């Protein structure tokens, strides 16, 4: 049975599955210079972190590809002509190569740890900065760009696709349609605003139902503080939707004094040691969440605590 089928069966049986924790913030915390997602300068650190999450017991590990797309480079130039004129020579092709490399590192980690049943989720973030729904491109543009990313990840050998931190319904729908063309299962996860709905302000319940109708294999919420995530799990559970999932961030987003699409630095994470995070996750599980892991700020210790502390079966 393939990892995706194993995962699917477990979720259908009502079991819960463990996602991994943060990649970006943990790499930065470990001193990796955040450029090219650490993939060029520190591939060993990326693979080692995957391995730690596997050893911590994750059933699903995510590729280090959040917001890794052509815009990451193109956006800091006037346009393509300007990028060619003053940019490093390989910037046009680099995003695609990095996507492939990121998948290869996750696969290498899985092989090295010897857990072939673990599913690798190819992560796709919003095309523009995840916290700026106002910048989301039009749906037709988004669909084409997400299609390239989804096909690249699928071609490199992921087991499912995870649309993460989706901040508008329109982009989630465009990405979902593009991702489903790969034939892989697609999970959709929304980033929440302070009001508890999508960051765009669109109602969470309706967005969840829309993506579910369009074929999302699971609906999740992520990248908001644990309390907000808990309330959102309640909203999803009240819809009677299954499976649903949750992964909160901990600490506070501490961006640099510089323009970046997303610079994964969270500080103050010590306020959420693994035991405290586990207590929050227990409540999500009790409310019906079957897919549970950690977003920005979480570490292998948090995932280990979830593995040890969450109920084995509902």
């Amino acid at each position, binding site marked *: 049975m393939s990892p995706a089928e194993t995962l699917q069966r477990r979720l259908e049986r009502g079991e819960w599955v463990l996602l991994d924790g943060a990649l970006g913030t943990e790499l930065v915390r470990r001193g990796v210079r955040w450029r090219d997602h650490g993939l060029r300068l520190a591939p060993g650190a990326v693979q080692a972190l995957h391995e730690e999450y596997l050893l911590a017991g994750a059933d699903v590990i995510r590729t280090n590809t959040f917001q890794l797309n052509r815009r990451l480079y193109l956006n800091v130039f006037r346009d393509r002509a300007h990028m060619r*004129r003053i*940019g*490093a020579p390989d910037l046009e092709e680099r995003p695609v190569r990095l996507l492939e490399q990121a998948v290869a590192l996750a696969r290498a980690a899985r092989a090295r740890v010897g857990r072939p049943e673990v599913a690798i989720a190819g992560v796709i973030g919003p095309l523009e*900065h995840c916290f700026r729904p106002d910048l989301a491109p039009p749906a037709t543009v988004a669909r084409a760009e997400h299609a390239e990313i989804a096909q690249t990840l699928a071609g490199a050998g992921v087991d499912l696709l995870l649309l993460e931190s989706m901040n508008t319904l329109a982009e989630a729908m465009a990405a979902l349609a593009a991702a489903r063309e790969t034939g892989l299962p697609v999970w959709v996860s929304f980033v929440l605003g302070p009001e508890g709905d999508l960051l765009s302000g669109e109602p969470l319940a309706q967005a969840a139902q829309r993506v579910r109708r369009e074929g999302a294999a699971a609906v999740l919420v992520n990248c908001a503080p644990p309390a907000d995530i808990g309330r959102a799990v309640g909203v999803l559970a009240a819809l009677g939707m299954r499976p649903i999932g949750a992964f909160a961030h901990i600490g506070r*987003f*501490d961006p640099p*004094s*510089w323009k970046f699409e997303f*610079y994964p630095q969270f500080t103050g994470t010590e306020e959420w040691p693994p035991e405290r995070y586990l207590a929050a996750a227990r409540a999500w599980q009790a409310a019906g969440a079957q897919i549970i892991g950690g977003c920005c700020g979480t570490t292998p210790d948090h995932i280990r605590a979830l593995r040890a502390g969450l109920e084995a079966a509902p």
Partner: protein
Amino acid sequence: MSYEAIRERLARGETVLLDGAIGTEILRRQVSWADHQLQRRPEVVQAIHRDYILAGADVITTNTFQLTRRSFLNHFRDLAHLRHIGAPDLETRWRDLIRAGVRLAQAARAAAAGGRPVAIAGSLTTLEWCFRPDLAPSPAAAEAEYRETMAVFAEAGVDLLLIETVNAIREAVAAARAARSLGLPYWVSFVPDEEGRLFTGETLAEAVQALAPLAPEALLLNCAPPEDITRGLAVLAPVAPCPVGVYPHIGRFDPPEWLFTDEYPPERYAALGQQWRAMGARILGGCCGTTPDHIAALHRRLRPTA
């Protein structure tokens, strides 16, 4: 120190040396960038200022490029979101960092200038990304934001403002109006495209016309490859009503860092500096990719008796 010594030198037609890159120089010294390193590695920033002073710079720029309230807010949906999930000091960090940046330049000058007049230019750029004129805020909003930012520089005690890598006339005008309202001497430096125009397609001649009534102390060109700077200078020098200057970048932008190349070693760069001086440039320095060695080479060629 005030701007007076620099103004007099320029009035006499003499060359004024600007420093070279700070951000890329931090990277070249194997320190990561991301947050200007003003608080975590202040000694590295101060050492770079010192090295530029020792190389012969008459004007050093603060390590404050793009430090504004907006820079931090842009990472979030809005202020409510920033307050909800952001680190506690993000609404005021820009101000603390500007103050720290000016202090480090002042400390370097006190330690290294040895009585030579060295001016400190507060570095600012466009409110949105310097290569993306399409993102610029409205002129009214821009002027108010510039005034807020520049007031911090004024209070911290810079000698002039260097409004650099400007991509549009309207943003240059907004910044110039703000600087004038605070009574600070200021230079405006445009980033030219490969045809010697602004990134908006506006011409440098149009930019000169728009800024002339606001009496900038100098107009410059920066952050483009040397050949583009040369092309722009040929347009700018004949029409400018004030001293002009140039400080190109060398190497390639490799976001978010820099790709250093050996295409323009210091002596070759300084030879170009001589050419720019002959074309009318009186302020010469370096942008991304340049080093204290480049400024020292300019100094040997252009200020041999100084």
